[in-house]
């Protein structure tokens, strides 16, 4: 990890006193821990938000009751601790493993999925220099990692020795794989516009206010690319209109029907972390990343992180919003949208942007 | 007209092509075409005869074209006194034979094609002056003969002594025998090729004229033993063709099995190839080897043996054709004897004998053919008193027989007499005793001819042949011209003699002039 090593040594000089290698290992473990924790928290927040927004959309209140005795937190109200309670419930719930199931794989699947999601975070810039590893091929890395999830799903589906879970896994895998292509193509537009894969550079290119955001470059192509990427990422998350795998009505809970307890929690957690991941990616690529919408104003100090998270949550809101409004899409329609709609749009965007750039 | 020799050689080949286009069933058109082409060839031959300048011994009508320059082989054709009579004989006999084979019914096209090819081969041999070309024509001539005897000859049969005899057997025997001979000739040819330097270019050469010039002989040809060896090899090659005594057994078989026309050509022309070869190649090119004591006397003695042996064997034959075959051997013996004397008389006599024997035997075979067509067998004792039934045929046969036994007034006498005289009077070798012994041959010849004539024609008419048809027009057409030729050349041989005498005298002088061999020991 020489690249990683170089960055870390730059920033964490204070650990210089330790021997070089120990230093890097320590730093890696620390980073990983931070991300894991952040992801977990974000996931819980995501779940909570989901429940609240979906409830309000459906003119209902959502979880209100669950509260804690801790004085300060107690009076936030609105059942903020509901997801926490759920998490605790899942942790202590009995972990059932189906008979004949492939125990090891069964266990491993959720971890793969979660790992894949976490890996995505390491590249995202939450501030000027505030990035786990400033990979030169950052964006490309994200695309690669996103495909990693599929394996976890397949293994989950397969190892639970259940026809439906297998079918669900196969279907979700196919879905993710087939939506990967339009997503990647859309990103191509960004890469072409900026000319670098490094997320830091991309954000730098969009510095200077809302009008500089990438989304507005080469209208309408970039907008088209943004739209394609957003829909594709929705599919990759197996959310909302494209949530066939977990479609209750048909194949129960898809690949994680046989999961319960902690492993199920892992899946759930991964899903929401992934949502957040997509939100941040869209933010950095199209919505100017950690740059403030108002140009240099409010651009220093903790504000870059704030802006990124804000933009991310806006995207999440839209996702949740879509989940509870659009009807579920049939499988062939799903495939149709991917191959016959999104991919051509992506090509159009790419070609258009390319030509525009040349002019 | 220039390159007449190429014309005369390849006219039959054109004939073959013409024949090939004729549909198989109308046999007569094939025959007519063959006749036309051989006729044309005869016309050419006569033209050559008239335009041939017999006063010089130089090569005439010669054509020389580069054929295979890399090996310095050229297409060199030319004739002199020695080859003119042969060319005339071939053309004449081929023309006659076409009519003689009018009766052939089996795959007529094949037959005439083969015949014309044979004709071309023969003509080529007599006209070519390049050893390589000579050898090629020599071999070309072999092939059609094999087929003619093999296919159109008599069917193969197993004799009572268990031996399988018949057309194919004879054909194979003939082919292998001659081929065996021609291998030695090939060896000799190659030795010449490599050791004779072309005076002009200095490279190797096949050109016979250069080969004849002793000055060009280099390399291994200087050594006398080698010259003897080559001479022996060549002699073997030609001896088989003549045929000379020990190598003659193919002739009777070939004749008996071959159809009439083929055996006419075989006896009429092919036998002359051997002696022609000797006179064209062995004598001029290796004169000293020829004059070596043992070879010269050997040749004479072989001639004598041929005469006596042939005559005696003929006497014991029951098959008419075999008898005539052995008579050919006997007559060819006379040629050998005449040649060995190395006198102008003997040489001219020998070549005349070649020509006269050609016509004489041709007539004999045609007559045998006539009787065979009618009686379908050739056993002499089977006939009897035919003269009563077929007087003209008997007359013709008697003319042929008397020509055969060398009755004065007929052509063979002149050539036989002068061959004997030449041999007897030879200064270089004392052949007197050999010649005198050989003259006994003409008694035996008279014996078996008359005895055969008596058994076939005289005496009571064999009732079986009471209705035998007389000789018909076509057969007469083939026989009369030869008969006339035999009589005319017998009474007045000058036209033939003038043709050949200058060249042959010169040949004799050349050979005599060559210094006697200086080999130690055997000398």
């Amino acid at each position, binding site marked *: 990890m020489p690249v990683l090593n170089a960055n870390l040594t730059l920033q964490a000089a204070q650990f210089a006193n330790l021997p070089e290698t120990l230093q890097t290992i320590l730093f890696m473990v620390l980073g990983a821990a931070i991300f894991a924790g952040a992801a977990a928290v974000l996931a819980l927040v995501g779940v909570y938000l989901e429940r609240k927004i979906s409830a309000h959309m459906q003119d209902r209140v959502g979880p209100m009751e669950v509260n804690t005795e801790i004085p300060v937190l107690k009076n936030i109200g609105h059942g903020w601790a509901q997801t926490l309670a759920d998490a605790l419930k899942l942790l202590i719930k009995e972990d059932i493993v189906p008979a004949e199931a492939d125990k090891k794989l069964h266990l491993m699947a959720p971890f793969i999925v979660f790992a894949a999601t976490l890996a995505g975070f390491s590249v995202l810039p939450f501030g000027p220099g505030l990035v786990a590893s400033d990979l030169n091929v950052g964006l490309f890395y994200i695309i690669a990692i996103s495909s990693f999830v599929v394996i976890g799903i397949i293994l989950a589906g397969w190892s639970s020795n259940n026809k439906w879970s297998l079918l669900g896994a196969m279907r979700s895998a196919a879905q993710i794989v087939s939506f990967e292509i339009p997503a990647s193509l859309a990103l191509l537009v960004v890469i072409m516009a900026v000319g670098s894969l490094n997320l830091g550079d991309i954000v730098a290119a969009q510095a200077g206010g809302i009008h500089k955001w990438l989304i507005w470059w080469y209208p309408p192509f970039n907008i088209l690319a943004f739209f394609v990427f957003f829909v594709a990422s929705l599919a990759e998350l197996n959310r909302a209109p494209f949530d066939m795998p977990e479609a209750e009505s048909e194949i129960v809970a898809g690949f994680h029907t046989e999961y319960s307890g902690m492993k199920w929690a892992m899946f759930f957690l991964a899903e929401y972390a992934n949502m957040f991941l997509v939100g941040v990616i869209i933010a950095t690529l199209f919505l100017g990343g950690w740059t403030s919408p108002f140009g240099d104003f409010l651009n220093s100090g903790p504000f870059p992180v704030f802006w990124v998270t804000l933009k991310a949550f806006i995207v999440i809101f839209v996702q949740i919003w879509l989940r509870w409004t659009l009807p579920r899409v049939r499988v062939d329609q799903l495939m149709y949208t991917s191959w016959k709609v999104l991919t051509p749009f992506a090509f159009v965007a790419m070609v258009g942007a390319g030509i525009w750039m040349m002019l | 007209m220039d390159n007449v020799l190429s014309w005369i050689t390849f006219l039959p080949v054109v004939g073959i092509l013409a024949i090939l286009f004729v549909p198989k069933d109308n046999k007569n058109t094939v025959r007519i075409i063959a006749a036309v082409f051989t006729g044309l060839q005869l016309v050419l031959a006569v033209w050559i005869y008239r335009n041939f300048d017999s006063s010089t011994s130089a090569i005439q009508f010669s054509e020389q074209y580069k054929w295979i320059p890399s090996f310095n082989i050229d297409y060199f054709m030319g004739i002199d006194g020695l080859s003119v009579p042969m060319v005339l004989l071939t053309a004449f006999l081929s023309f006659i034979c076409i009519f003689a084979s009018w009766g052939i019914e089996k795959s007529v096209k094949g037959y005439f094609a083969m015949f014309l090819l044979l004709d071309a081969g023969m003509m080529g041999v007599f006209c070519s002056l390049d050893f390589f070309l000579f050898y090629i024509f020599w071999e070309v001539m072999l092939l059609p003969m094999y087929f003619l005897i093999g296919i159109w000859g008599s069917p193969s049969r197993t004799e009572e002594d268990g031996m399988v005899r018949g057309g194919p057997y004879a054909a194979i025997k003939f082919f292998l025998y001659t081929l065996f001979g021609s291998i030695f000739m090939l060896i000799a040819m190659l030795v010449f090729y490599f050791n004779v330097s072309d005076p002009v270019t200095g490279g190797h050469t096949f050109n016979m004229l250069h080969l004849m010039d002793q000055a060009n002989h280099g390399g291994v040809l200087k050594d006398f033993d080698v010259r003897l060896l080559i001479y022996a090899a060549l002699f073997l090659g030609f001896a088989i063709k003549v045929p000379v005594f*020990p190598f003659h057994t193919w002739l009777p078989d070939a004749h008996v099995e071959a159809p009439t026309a083929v055996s006419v050509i075989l006896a009429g022309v092919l036998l002359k190839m051997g002696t022609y070869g000797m006179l064209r190649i062995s004598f001029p090119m290796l004169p000293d080897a020829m004059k070596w004591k043992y070879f010269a006397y050997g040749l004479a003695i072989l001639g004598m043996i041929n005469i006596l042996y042939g005559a005696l064997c003929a006497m014991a*034959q029951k098959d008419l054709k075999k008898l005539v075959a052995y008579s050919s051997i006997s007559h060819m013996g006379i040629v050998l004897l005449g040649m060995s004397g190395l006198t102008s008389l003997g040489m*001219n006599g020998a070549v005349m004998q070649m020509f006269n024997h050609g016509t004489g035997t041709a007539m004999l075979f045609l007559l045998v053919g006539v009787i065979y067509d009618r009686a379908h067998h050739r056993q002499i004792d089977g006939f009897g008193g035919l003269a009563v039934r077929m007087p003209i045929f008997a007359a013709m046969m008697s003319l042929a027989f008397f020509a055969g036994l060398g009755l*004065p007034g007929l052509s063979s006498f002149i050539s036989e007499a002068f061959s004997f005289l030449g041999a007897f*009077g030879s200064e270089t070798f004392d052949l*007197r005793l050999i010649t005198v012994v050989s003259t006994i041959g003409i*008694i035996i010849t*008279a014996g078996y001819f008359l005895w055969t004539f*008596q058994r076939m024609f005289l*005496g009571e008419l064999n009732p079986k042949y009471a209705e035998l048809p007389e000789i018909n027009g076509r057969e007469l057409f083939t026989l009369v011209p030869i008969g006339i030729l035999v009589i005319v050349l017998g009474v007045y041989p000058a036209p033939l003699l003038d043709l050949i005498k200058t060249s042959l005298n010169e040949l004799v002088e050349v050979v005599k002039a060559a210094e006697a061999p200086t080999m130690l020991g055997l000398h």
Partner: protein
Amino acid sequence: MITNAILILLLPLAAFVVQISFGKRLPRKGDWLSTGAMFIALFMALSILVDAISTYESNKVLAAQTWEWFSFGSVHVTFGIVIDNLTAFMLFVVTLISALVHLYSIGYMHGDPRYSRYFAYLGLFSFSMLGLVLVDNFLGIYVFWELVGLSSYLLIGFWFEKDSASNAGKKAFITNRIGDVGMFAAIMILFSTFGTFDFDGVFAGVAAGGLSDGWLTAAGILLFFGAIGKSAQFPLHVWLPDAMEGPTPVSALIHAATMVAAGVYMVGRTFVLYSADALFFIAVIGTITAFMAATIAIVQKDIKRVLAYSTISQLGYMMVGLGTGGYTAGLMHLTTHAMFKALLFLGSGSVIHAVHSQEMDDMGGLRKKMPITFWTFLIATLALSGVPPLSGFFSKDAILASALEYGMRHSGQMWIFVIMLLSAGITAFYMFRLVYMTFFGEPADKKKYDHAHESPLTMTLPLMILAVFSIGTFSWGWFEHLISKPSLAAYGAVAAVAEHGGGHDDVAHTAHTIAMISSIVVALSGILLATTVYYWKKISAETWGSRLKPLYNLLWNKYYFDELYAATIISGTLWKSRFLAMFDLRVIDGVVNGVGRLTAGLSNVSGKVDLRVVDGLVNLVGRIVAYAGARLRTLQTGNVQSYLLMALFAVIILFVIQQF
């Protein structure tokens, strides 16, 4: 002169050619054509003879002309005609007899199916005989020599249906051929030494001593061989008796007068060539022939056989004449003999014609029936026996004289004269025996006797003419003058051999008178003996015959010559030829076929070897491959992975190998 000669020569030839090709279609089948031609030739010959006699110069060459026949560059072969006294006489004799025979044949051959061809052959014969007489070089003489042989063959074998006739013809030709070979050998010797065929050229060469004595004798003897063959002398006489198979006029013409005389003529023509030894040889042969033939004639039953043997005997006489130096005597006898022998034959012909049989037993007492034939026959017999006034006496006496003279000169050679004298006596005896048996005594066969009648005029006329000539042909004197013995001197011979020229010195004279007396005595005694045995039948032939059985048988079987020859030469040659043919077929062809079979065998063996060894090997390889294949097949499990394994294994092996 020359044109006459050419005409004489060509007339018969023309007659022959016309006759043979159109004979049948001519009126009376063309007999008049040939006979006419011959009489014209006779007339011309007569004119030449008169011309020769009128010039009256010994050995005078009346005319000579040569034409170039063909040439061998250096050697020129010419063909020419020479007419000297001898030729003139011969021409006259040949044409006369030939014409008379033609005339006679018209009657004799009447009704024969191949009548025209007979006259053609006669024409051919005459042409050849005349050619032989006229020609001036050796080659020419040899050519006509053979042609004469041919025509005699054709005429003897004229009635070829009869096997005996064709056999006789063949025998004649071959025997002649044997003689000819000898002659040709002589010609070769002469030509090789002198380079020319002409008589004059050769004689000049001999005169110049070009040929060593030994070779000269050899040449002479060999030349004489030709004569032996042709004139039926001792060893080669066997063909003449058989030649009687031919028609009688033929016998008369050929086997009495002309052809057989050719030998004598040839010896005469080339007389200078013969050395002393050669002449002696001729004399010896002549004597033997004369005596032998005469003795055989005694016992013969067939009229023509008797005459044949008498001819042989008389020829012997001529040869003795020439041999002993009596050149003129020999040739004179030739001419006289020709006349009366022809008459005898024609006479016997008319007898046969009448009686239709040649056996004397069937005849007898024909005197009354055939007076002309009888009387002419008697005259001829007297002439033949040597009764004085007739021509026969003079020539025979001259020969006996020269024989005696020869005997006197050469001590120890007297036996020739004695035998010849004896033969003369025997001749007289058997001739009169013949006359008595045919014309006197009782007719043995009544029917034949009645049927017999005198021959027609065409046959009797020649008899009469010949009778006249038999009586007094020529007076001895001028004949001797015209045809005297040539000597080498004429050709510039240096050392003229002191040859006794039958001239007029004392020895010759005494010999002459003694010979005359003795010959008359012997002749008369012979006649007497014959009459006693056959006319008065005092001594019965049969008793003497039986008493001298062995001698009789010997004579009857002609000294077993035929059997001797048959056993030795003929069967010898036949056996040799059969052996050689068999040898050729078996041995040489055997060798060739053997080689063929050998190679076939070899190829067979190599075929087998090939089959077993080589093929075996191949099969072995095949089997190995199959076996390996089978084993390896298991490798082809169809399992791709095992293939890969093997491949890798190979890689390793290669690598390992590459290391070392």
